[in-house]
């Protein structure tokens, strides 16, 4: 039986897509994209939505299949018990990695810009325990939290857009496409590997848990596309205001951009406050990835009692903290991994799984048109 706190509406589903789409880009993904696309980085959020439609449609296609089941159950039913279990482990491992990276990215940003003397482990524990608390409360709480984050983000981004507008110098974005269109198309495809991993966690939500089932897919498409277009703002502002020369120099060029905000000569030095929207987006990924991993653990080990669920969640969270500290001892290690290994060797794994799933669903549908596909 579906309890009340398991249902979310289409708008919340779209907000989840929107927040998750920004989670990895803001922070390190943005730095990597700027180092790849350089002067033309601002064009990526305009080109990427074209390619983004493919994984979104794939995701919706899979969510629509057997609407009462989550992704683990669907994999089991499509691949059988043994192969299905193996694929579930691989997929959960991937999301666990995204969780670890999001955690590390959020904590590293906080340590670098806000709290330089606070130990990594302490901050990471604070972040993860808050996320785990949200996970324990259920998907509706996560969705509502994201809704609140979204509206706060809109206000913060609004302030940034309005008060940085006078600093825009269009000559800074020139030359446009000096090396032609092909490299930027390639970089747009690579950028999907930073946009989509957290979005894949939405597959954990069975379609029946979405209240407005008929229109949710439009909401999701819109949410993800808006999230990508949302990325246009930081990239365009960074290139046209900070300039590519400095953007390549700073670890967080977007943060450097915020130094310039001066509201009527009264409010200055707002960079710490305004940069909170990055943390909110990353925290969304933390919530959803933790939810995904915890859900897998509960389902696999058949944990049903509340106190055991809480203990398992805390253990998973603390493990993520320890592994993240161990995996990325410094920011260079993290960036190198995300730039040279993640998009080419790690991200294709879930993508291939999803493609195979879509093919199997398609074949099943052809074989038996009455298969439960809405």
């Amino acid at each position, binding site marked *: 039986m579906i309890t009340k706190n398991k249902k979310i509406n289409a708008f919340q589903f779209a907000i989840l897509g929107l927040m998750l789409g920004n989670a990895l880009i803001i922070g390190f993904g943005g730095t990597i994209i700027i180092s790849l696309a350089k002067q033309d980085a601002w064009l990526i959020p305009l080109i990427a939505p074209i390619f983004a439609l493919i994984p979104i449609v794939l995701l919706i296609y899979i969510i629509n299949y057997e609407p009462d089941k989550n992704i683990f159950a669907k994999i089991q039913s499509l691949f059988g018990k043994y192969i299905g279990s193996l694929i579930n482990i691989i997929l959960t491992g991937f999301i666990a990695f995204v969780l670890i990276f999001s955690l590390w990215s959020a904590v590293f940003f906080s340590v670098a810009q806000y709290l330089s003397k606070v130990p990594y482990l302490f901050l990471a524990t604070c972040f993860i325990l808050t996320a785990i608390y949200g996970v324990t409360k259920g998907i509706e709480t996560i969705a509502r939290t994201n809704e609140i984050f979204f509206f706060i983000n809109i206000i913060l981004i609004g302030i940034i857009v309005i008060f940085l507008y006078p600093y825009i110098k269009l000559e800074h974005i020139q030359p446009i496409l000096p090396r032609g269109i092909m490299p930027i198309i390639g970089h747009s495809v690579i950028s999907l590997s930073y946009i989509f991993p957290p979005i894949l966690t939405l597959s954990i939500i069975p379609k029946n848990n979405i209240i407005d089932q008929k229109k949710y897919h439009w909401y999701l498409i819109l949410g993800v596309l808006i999230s990508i277009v949302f990325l246009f703002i930081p990239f365009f502002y960074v290139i046209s205001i900070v300039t590519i020369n400095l953007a390549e120099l*700073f670890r967080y060029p977007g943060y450097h951009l915020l*130094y*310039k905000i001066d509201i009527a000569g009264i409010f200055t030095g707002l960079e710490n406050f305004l940069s909170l929207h990055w943390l909110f987006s990353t925290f969304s990924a933390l919530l959803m990835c933790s939810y995904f991993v915890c859900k897998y653990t509960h389902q696999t080990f058949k944990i049903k009692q509340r106190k055991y669920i809480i203990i398992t969640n805390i253990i998973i969270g603390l493990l993520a903290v320890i592994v993240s500290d161990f995996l990325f001892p410094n920011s260079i290690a993290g960036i190198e991994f995300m730039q040279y290994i993640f998009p080419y060797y790690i991200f294709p794994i879930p993508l291939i799984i999803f493609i195979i799933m879509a093919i199997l669903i398609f074949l099943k549908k052809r074989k038996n048109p009455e298969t439960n596909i809405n």
Partner: protein
Amino acid sequence: MKKFKWLFIIIILLLVSGCWQYRELNDLAIVSAIGVDKIDTEYLVTVQVINTRKQSHTIQAGEETTVTIYEAKGKSIQEALNMISLECPKELYLGHIDIVVIGEETARTGIKDYIDFFLRDREVRKIYPFVFAKGAMATDVLKILPPIIILPGTNLANMIETADEINGVISNRRFDNVLDCMYKRGRHAGVTAIEIVNQSEKGDSLDNLSESKPKTKLMITGPAVMRDDKLVGFLNNREGFGYNIIRKQVKRAVITFPCDKDNNYGSVTIDSPKVKLDTKIKNNKPFTSIKIDIASSLTSYNCKLDLSKDKNITKVENMIVKETESIIKDVIYAAQKIHKTDVLGFGEKIYQNYYKDWEKIEKNWDEIFPTVKYEIKVNARINSIGSVINPAPKGGEKNDY
């Protein structure tokens, strides 16, 4: 379970609400300015620390100064700052730096090696004015006690900011602007310069302030010109004005022009002139065109001319055009022939608009730049002639028009 929940909440409250990194203001030495000089292989770092004991904003003879200067040498800036902590009772706090001054000799050897500290340090905001001390060491500049604003670092920053707003000769070149220009393709950086007027031993004591005309003063001058990361020279004030016009950095300025052959002058104030700079390849050679559109208000006119007639206003406008052209020619001459460095951004325009052409000439741009031909088109309008129409007659003279 409930007990654990409360215990957890109490622990979190105790740890988080206390602010882990909390530092008492009394424990901090707030640095308002930093000066860097290179002596042999070591850096001499001078910091101006605000004297928090000094509450009053006025100084009287015999009183303590509003700032304390600390100096130390080190192989790196960080090492020198560490050495300062041996004599400073508080921890140096760099989050409120008003200005960074680099000595001329140090700037001539290149700044790349030591700006890394200012870039990397988390506390230092990268938007303070970054200036070169013309003909002086940074330490000497920071020791001068200025009139009016008693914190020397703040005084310097305010001088630059005010001049940036109302005097076209100066533009506030902040640290991030300078860095950006240093790394730009097709352009070198211009940096705000400051010099000591009448340097004397009195300059760093309160005696300097006890006179209505302080003997030793600081004055902002025309900008310094860099090639890559090295200082190569200074533009004079007139050239500095031309530089700022071309770089679209003039917010408000005064153009003074000769209006007859008897050394009489007229002046206009101008607000943010519109400038269009373009460089393209014509017959395999770069050619720059500069179009300037000036809207002005006549503020003084000391020659005989009936300004109630429109044709005479046009005559004055032509005088402004001629003077502006001359200013622009002067700065182009200084950049091309004297300093041989493209601070004006001619090359940058080729890079931005004609990237394929730029790729061909980029390597030799420093040699090509001094030979670039150019044309200047100035359009000047007088929008207002002030409260009077005709020039005030000189004593004993009657207007004969």
